[in-house]
């Protein structure tokens, strides 16, 4: 329908609507533009595009866990991002070069004694963490890694060769400058170590179990031996008594049986032999005592294990008490409902009629 066909009133109305639509479209466009601008700005801030930055690099053994754009941390803050990861030449000692930018003001914290440490994440990722410098007791002169003059950055050059002190670069850094090198301490990967440890434990566990089985067998054997040893000792007891009696008689200096009936040499030999018998018995007794002590320790350990179990049970009692309090709370709720005038009719009324003394009349004279 052409606009000319409309009545003047309708045309006036349509004009007004068009104005509002146009206004709405303009406002919406402005809002969208603003939102996009804000998003672009926040992204730029997040990525450090709006900040001054200086380049660094470090050398690591593996690029595993790194990717370009990953944050570089300093004192818990995001201080920069990784800009490039590249493998080194095959003949070089270090395998990988990781380049990263550090934003202002964080590069002010990085001195020539700063270093890089690798932090492993739970999911296998790695984070570079640079350390604050200027506080170590190095032999060389401590200096900031960069200085800014007239909007240009000059890099600190550590002494090399015969030089005793480092110096600032004569020319400001340019876009091709690779960066100041920070030494990387590749600490042992904790997760990897833990995994290795777990693997080793897993591998060793059957051995441990077999060892414990062997210990068990040994203990059983010891117990059996001990019981039989006790029997033997008991059997030996009268013999030892007899030996003691004989030796006392034999060793009785004057008028003793030994001196009287047995020649002195033989007497001495007999005494020595009997003495060694006694010593053997005593040694056996000592071994038995030691064995029993070891068994006792084993029993103590067992008692400790059971006491730990008991603690577990006691800890569970807290859960039981929680359930108990829940029941009590529920009871309170129900008691509260009972008091409500509208709901109390739903609960059966309490019968508080006092009890009566029971008395039945006597039935008949025959009984």
């Amino acid at each position, binding site marked *: 329908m052409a606009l000319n066909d409309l009545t003047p009133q309708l045309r006036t109305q349509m004009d007004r609507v068009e104005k509002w639509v146009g206004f709405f479209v303009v406002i919406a466009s402005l809002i969208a533009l603003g939102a996009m601008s804000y998003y672009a700005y926040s992204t730029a801030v997040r990525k450090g595009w709006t900040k001054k930055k200086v380049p660094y690099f470090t050398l690591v053994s593996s690029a595993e866990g790194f990717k370009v754009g990953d944050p570089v941390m300093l004192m818990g803050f995001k201080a920069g991002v990784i800009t490039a990861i590249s493998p080194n030449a095959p003949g070089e000692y270090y395998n990988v070069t990781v380049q990263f930018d550090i934003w202002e003001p964080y590069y002010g914290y990085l001195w020539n004694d700063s270093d890089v440490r690798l932090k492993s994440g739970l999911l296998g990722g790695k984070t570079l963490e640079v350390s604050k410098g200027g506080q170590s007791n190095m032999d060389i002169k401590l200096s900031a890694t960069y200085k800014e003059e007239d909007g240009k950055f000059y890099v600190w050059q550590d002494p090399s060769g015969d030089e005793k002190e480092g110096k600032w670069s004569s020319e400001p850094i340019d876009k091709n400058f690779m960066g100041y090198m920070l030494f990387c301490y590749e600490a042992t990967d904790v997760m990897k170590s833990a995994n290795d440890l777990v693997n080793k434990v897993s591998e060793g566990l059957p051995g441990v179990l077999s060892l414990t089985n062997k210990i068990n067998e040994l203990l059983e054997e010891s117990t059996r031996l001990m019981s039989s040893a006790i029997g033997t000792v008991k059997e030996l007891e009268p013999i030892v008594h007899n030996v003691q009696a004989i030796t006392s008689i034999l060793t009785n200096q004057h008028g003793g049986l030994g001196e009287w009936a047995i020649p002195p040499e033989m007497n001495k030999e007999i005494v020595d032999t009997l003495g060694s018998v006694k010593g053997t018995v005593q040694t056996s007794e000592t071994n038995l005592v030691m064995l029993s002590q070891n068994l006792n320790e084993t029993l103590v350990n067992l008692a400790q294990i059971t006491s730990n179990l008991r603690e577990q049970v006691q800890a569970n009692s807290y859960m039981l008490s929680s359930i108990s309090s829940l029941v009590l709370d529920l009871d309170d709720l129900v008691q509260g409902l009972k008091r409500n005038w*509208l709901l109390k009719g739903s609960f059966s009324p309490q019968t508080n009629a006092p009890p009566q*003394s029971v*008395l039945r009349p006597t*039935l*008949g004279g025959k009984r």
Partner: protein
Amino acid sequence: MKNIRESLYLACFIFSGLFFIGCSTPAPEPVPYPVHEAELLEATAINVMEAGNWKASEETWGEVARKYALLDRRDRQAIALHNQSYSAYRNGNYESARALASEAASINLQGSEWWKNQILLLQIEQKTSQESRQKRMEELLSLAETSNLEEKETALWVLLQNEYGSGLLREGSADKANAVIHRALEKVNAVDRSTAWALNSNLAETEEALGRYDAALTSWNKLLEEAKELADPELIATALAGQGRCLWGLGRDYEAIMILQRAAKNFQWLGMEKESSELFELIEQYMIKSAVPRESNVMHIDTKTADSEVGQ
């Protein structure tokens, strides 16, 4: 439509307000745990006693009495002691029952509970010492006279008269017993149906003792129907025994023995061994007298009928 909706909104609003006002009702005073415990135990004792488990009842009432003694609730302790005493009496522990009833009486000192204790003591002493019973009865009758018990505590007075009448009947003074019970029955409206039934049954027994078997049989027939209405197996058995005795008195030997056997069986099933054995002895005597072959009679016992009586 709009009005209806507004009315509904208003009703909801009012109900919500009332609900929340109701919620703010102050909580009742909490019952201390020992009191609550004693009350629970007391309720258990009542249930046990109503179930006729006299052994458990004796023990439970003893525990209730001990708990109330600790709480210094003397009135409830006395009731518990009384009920323990009654349970002991039903268990045949007469000495224990007597001691407990005396203790309850010493707590009550006076009032209706004291009278109940005394009447129970009369019942116990009926089994133990007739002399004590005689003496106590005289004292109580005198006291009832002076304290105008008939007007003040009519139900208790009726019970006392029942005890007096049954005592006289036992002593062989059937006419006196008849008169006493007749007088008590004038106040039958003051007592419950069970007591009224007991009075009527005692009256029927006095009729028996006086040789008025027709009147007694009529009474027993009526009493049997009432006992069935009351659904009290003990009363049913008692009524059957009464019927049997009356029938024997009327010369209807065979019917008498049949009914007496039913009554004896009922007592047996109720665990009332003494009553049962007494009835069996009576049956034996009747059988010897009438020379009715015992086996033939036993063979004709309608056990189904007997079962159904107890079941009622």
